[in-house]
Every structure is written in C-alpha cells, then in structure tokens.
C-alpha cells in the first residue's frame, strides 16, 4: 500500500487516540477516503451507511450507477470498511427521511417554493438521527466526506464552519443548519484537500471506490425529474391545482402553465411561451396559481427575509454586518448586509440586486472563509 505522507499531513486531522468516530459512508470516494484518513490517524472508525429511501420504489431510471441507497453502494461501503478492518453498519432512517426530507420537499413545491433537500438531510438526518446514533453507541465524533472545515474560535468560544480549501467542491453552503453542539462533535477529514488529491489518496490506499463518479443532485430522484416525482407522490394535489396562467409583471395573461409546483424562479426553458425575447419566471403566486414572467431585469431583487436561521461564528450579528451572501449552491456569493438580525430570522440587503432570489432555497452568509450563519429564504421584500 502506497502512503502519500505529504498528503496525509496536509489533511490537518488531529491525531486520534482510539476515540470512536462514526463515518457516514455513501459508498462513494469521498466518504471512503474520509474513513481511511481517520483510520490512519488513530481513530477507531465505525462506518455507517444510511438507508434513506427504497431504491426500487423511487421510480425513474434506477439503472443510474451513481444512486445512493442501492444494494451496490452499501456493498461498496462495506467492502471499504472490510479492507480497513473496521465495522460497517446500515442504519435504517427511511421513516425519518420520509418525514423530514421527502414530505417537506413535496410540501415546499406546493406552497410555491423551491426546496433544498440536501440541507434538510444534513440538518435532520446526518447531524440529527445519525449524530444521535453516534452518541448512542458511545462514539465521540461523527465524520462525513463533505468538503468543509471546522475550527473552534478560542476568542468567541464558538465552533466555526469554514469553506473547504477546494473552492470547486466546497459544500459549506449545504451545512449551515449544523448546530454548535453538533459541530463540536464533527470531523471533516477532506476540508483541506482537493478532489484530485482525494482520488490520489484513494488510489494510494487501494480503495475500490477511487474512480467512482460524482453522485447526482437529489438522491431520491435518480432520474433528476422532480416533476415526475411530484406527480407520482402527490397525484391528488397536482390534479386539484390544475393548470394556471402565465402573466406578465402588469398582470396581463400570456398563456397557460401546467400548475405552479412545476416551475421555479429564474426558469427560462420549458415555459412554452413565444414572446420573441428571452423571458424568465420572476415570481410564483400559489394563491391564484399564476406564474409571473418577465425580463432578466424583473428577476433582480435586493431585499429578502431569511427564516429558520442558524447562527454560526457569531450569535445574532449586529445591524449592518457586511457579509458575502450565497443564495444557491453554485454561486460565488455577493456583497450584502444583514439587517434586523434575530435569533432565527434576518433581513438581508444585497449591495447590488441579484438574480432569482428563490424562496425555499438557502441563503448562507460568509465572512471570508467563515460561515456567519444561514437560513431558508422566506420571501422577497419589494423595495
């Protein structure tokens, strides 16, 4: 077995002394390397793969190789653990995943919002049920293959979530919901590494998952067709809503749509409207089942309310705290200020209007590397 000492040192993992750490293992390369690194650093690793939904009941194209929760991925995770000589279990969290993630996913679309199931899975499943299980089996820490970092700030005495060194892979955006006490028990072994370095380590460690593809965006919708999923999961609700109207900003009727849950803010394709210029969805009005379309300019807003906030590096920042605010996963963030911060709610003002601020998506506030806090975009404030 080839060991790249330089890379191992680069991980910056605190040496373990046999503490038990549960590693959430998807069967992919990232969590495999996370487990291997902790094992190398002297921790007592316990691999757990989450069984979150019934692979065969999920519909769509189940032949997609990368799907999680299939028997294959569990076998991959088990094989990696076996190679490391550490125990591996499958935890059945289907019930809580259905309740906390899938049902919420459906409900959000039916109130005209665009949900972010990965954030909820992290908050309620991994740093909820799995962290609880970690404690139940006497584990000291929980680790995942996420690209992010944590530090204890000795001045504020708060645990800080930091962006990953690999900016391409940084997943801090989806981790804003992890609470202080949960961060204190969390290890992100990959935060200091780049994806190519992780693959190199996987090859060096002889892990069979080294060349596995990236997983898809929403695990429980393997074909990535959320509209099909909504129709299958909530046929009555879909039928009840029925078709509605596309309107322009002034309220003028432009055509009909299939029902508001099937559209998202900023969407351009698949509208079936020919107006001779690019148009986008700028608002969704569930009460009237209407969808407002407009020009790129109509999409740009600067003020919005964020709810369900979890504060990170500082609790309830002072008025006018300047941050960089990310409103979607693939987004570099834009300068903003936090206004009227409350324990669970904040108003955000972008310095320059931003495109497609989407209710239901997460807004995450950064101060450089550090996550100041995050929450769910509640509504736009028209200024």
């Amino acid at each position, binding site marked *: 077995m080839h060991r790249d000492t330089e890379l191992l040192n680069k991980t910056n993992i605190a040496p373990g002394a046999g503490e*038990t750490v549960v590693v959430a293992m998807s069967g992919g390369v990232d969590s495999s390397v996370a487990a291997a690194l902790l094992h190398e650093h002297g921790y007592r690793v*316990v691999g757990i793969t989450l*069984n979150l939904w019934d692979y065969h009941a999920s519909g769509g194209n189940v032949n997609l190789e990368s799907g999680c929760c299939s*028997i294959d991925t*569990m076998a991959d995770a*088990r094989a990696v653990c076996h190679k490391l000589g550490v*125990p591996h*279990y*499958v*935890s*059945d*969290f*289907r*019930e*809580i995943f259905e*309740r*906390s993630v899938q049902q919420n996913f459906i409900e959000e679309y039916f109130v005209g919002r665009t949900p972010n199931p990965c954030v909820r899975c992290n908050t*309620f499943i991994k740093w*909820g*049920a799995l962290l*609880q*299980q970690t*404690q*139940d*089996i*006497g584990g000291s820490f929980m680790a995942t293959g996420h690209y992010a970092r944590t530090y204890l700030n000795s001045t504020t005495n708060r645990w800080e979530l930091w962006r990953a060194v690999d900016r391409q892979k940084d997943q801090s955006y989806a981790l804003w919901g992890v609470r202080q006490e949960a961060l204190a028990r969390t290890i992100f072994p990959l935060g200091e590494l780049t994806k190519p370095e992780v693959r190199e380590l996987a090859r060096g460690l002889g892990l069979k998952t080294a060349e596995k593809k990236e997983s898809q965006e929403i695990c429980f919708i393997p074909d990535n067709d959320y509209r099909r999923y909504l129709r299958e999961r909530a046929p009555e609700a879909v039928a009840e809503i029925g078709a509605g109207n596309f309107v322009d900003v002034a309220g003028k009727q432009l055509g009909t749509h299939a029902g508001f849950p099937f559209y998202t803010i900023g969407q351009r394709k698949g509208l079936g409207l020919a107006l001779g210029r690019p148009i986008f969805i700028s608002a969704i009005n569930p009460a009237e089942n209407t969808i407002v379309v407009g020009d790129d300019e109509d999409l740009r807003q600067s003020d919005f309310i964020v709810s369900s906030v979890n504060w990170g590096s500082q609790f309830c920042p002072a008025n006018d705290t300047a941050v960089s605010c990310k409103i979607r996963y693939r987004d570099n963030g834009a300068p903003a200020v936090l206004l009227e911060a409350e324990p669970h709610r904040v108003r955000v003002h972008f310095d320059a209007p931003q495109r497609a601020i989407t209710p239901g998506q997460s807004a995450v506030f950064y101060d450089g590397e550090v996550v100041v806090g995050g929450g769910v975009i509640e509504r736009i404030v028209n200024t």
Partner: protein
Amino acid sequence: MNRIYLDYSATTPLAPEVLEAMQPFLTEYFGNASSIHGFGREAKVAIEAAREKLAVALGAEPQEIVFTSGGTEASNIAILGLAPTFSEPRHLVTSRVEHPCVLNPCRELEKSGWQVTYVEPDATGMISVNAVAAALRPDTALISIMFANNEVGTINPIAEIARLAAERKILFHTDAVQAFGKLPIDVRQLPVSLLSLSGHKIYGPKGMGALFVRRGVKLQPILFGGHQERERRAGTENVAGIVGLGKAAELILGQRVAETARLQRLANDFWKHVQEIFPQATLNGNPAARLPSVLNLSFPGFESTALLMSLDLQGIAVSNGSACSAGSVEISHVLRAMKLPRERAVSALRFSFGKYTTPAEVETTLQALAKILQRSPRPNNSTN
C-alpha cells in the same frame, strides 16, 4: 478481541464432528448419486444413511424425508407444491408470526386465487388452537403454523393444532426449523402432514434442509429436472450437505435433553441478572412455553440498533429481529403482530444461546450490557 456469539437462532457454527463426516464427500467421494458406477453408489449409500438418521430423529420412515436446499425450500415445497394438487384454489390458514419462507409462498398463492387467513397471535406470540379453529372454513385445504417462533422463541401448541387438523381432515404443515433438535418431535405421535427443518440451526451445514412428507401426502415438485428425491426435489444431491445434516441430526438428538437443561439454566440466569442491572427490561414472548435457548428482551428508552452495534463493537453478536438482506432493520412483523408497545418493539434484542456458549461469555455480556445501559437513554423513543 475475543468474540462472543449469542446469535444461535440466526445460525450455528458447524460441529467439528459434522465437518469430519462431510469432508470425504467434498474430496474423495465426489460421485453423482444418480450414476450407476461405483462412484455413484458410494454417494447414494451415504445419502440413504443420512436419510435414515433423519428419519430416526423424527420418528419417520426414510422415504418420508425429502432433502432440500434449506428450510426455505422445504416450506416452499410444502406450500407451493401442495397447491397444484387441488383442482381449484382453496383456503389456507397460517399466522402473522410465521417466517417469511412461509408468509411469502402464501402471498404468492393469493395471487393465483387462494384465500389465506393470517391468524393473530396472543401478546406472547402464541397461536392458540382456538384461533386456528375459528379460522377454518369448509374449503380449508392447508394449515401452516410454525412449531416455535424464531424471534421470540414462543412454542405453539402444535400437537393440539395437528389433532384439530387431523380431525377435520385438513393437511397440516409446520415450520420446525427453530424447534428441531431443541424440542422432542416424533411424527408417530404428532399427526403433522409436512414438517420443515434446516441444517445450519443444528450445527450442520448451510444450504441444507429437509421436508418430512407423510406417506400418502401428494406434492407437485416446484423445481423441474431429474428424478431425484422420488421426483419431489429435482437436482443433483448435495451429498456432503446431506451427510452433514444426517450427522448433525444424530448428534443433536443424543445431546438434546442435557443441552436443553443447561441452556435453560444459562438463559434464566442471564435474564435474572439483566433485570438486576436494568429493572425496566421486559421479556418478549411466552415466559413458560419458550425455547430454552432464546431470550427476546426489551430495554425501554434505548434503541435496539444502537444497542446491537454497541455490543458488536465489543465483539458480542446478538440480533434485533430477523436478519435482513441489506443488514438494515425495521420493527419486526412478529413484534408488531404481538402488538408490543412501540417503546418495547424498537428496543428489543434477541439473545440466543447454544452449544458453545459458556457461563463466562454470559458474564462478559452482562458486564458489557450494564455499561452500555448506563449511557443516557433517549429523551423519547423515536429516532429524531
């Protein structure tokens, strides 16, 4: 780490004597029992000797024993092989607490027009003869009730149910996979038509089982091929497996009475001490009519998967319900049918003891358990 195995209801290690008996048939005596030549004859003789051992163990005639690939196949042949002998779909009585290898063939029959009544157990998991009697109909063709339950160890009144079936001239199958070798079974006294058993629960090989088919009971094969096993189970015989099963049956028969008494003491002792270290613990299953080797216990406030993992991390193997293919577990259909309160159902662990369990292992397990149960229990009984 010294590992401790307390999951004998899931499977058992091969007894050294069984391995020794099997070995020549994996090497030197490799013949096909259907062959006319000397190689074939050796195999055939060994198979028939094993059949006699099994017949002796059950009080059956050798020709009433059909070797199968395990308990699952035995029960499948009993249920699915019997159905086509009736000219039209009929009614079948089984129970909610059967093993999937009985439940799923019954569900399969429902697809072809059979009607199935699933008898409810009492709170201890027991199927009463009255409940079975109440489910019978004029067109009932088969009753299938397990001898002893695999999860909680409850022993059913099989003799009474068998007599009821005989009086009503209804065929009766019992899945005796857990009971065989642990409880006295003599088909000369017990009027069962069909009885399934398995090799790997009695220190024999995996992939090996048998079905007792009382003389005169007609069965269709469910596998189609050669004429082996009097045309009741096609396919070249697993000679080494059959020899192993015969040896295992012979061994367990000789040790049954003494071993039962020993395991009873061990299990009772364990249960007594568990109550001392965790007074809220409860016993699931029948306190009296229970397999001596099985203890299904609940630890309210805890979650069985976490308890199982915690014990496993210390090298102690127990079970929290039937072993499942992906290794993930939901509340077992048995505990659900017993209408166990949720808090008890989600915190149930099955400890099953066997031939190689020592008092020292039981002591070590109690110490580990005591430590784990000192951890703070859940604020509530759900997972969030």
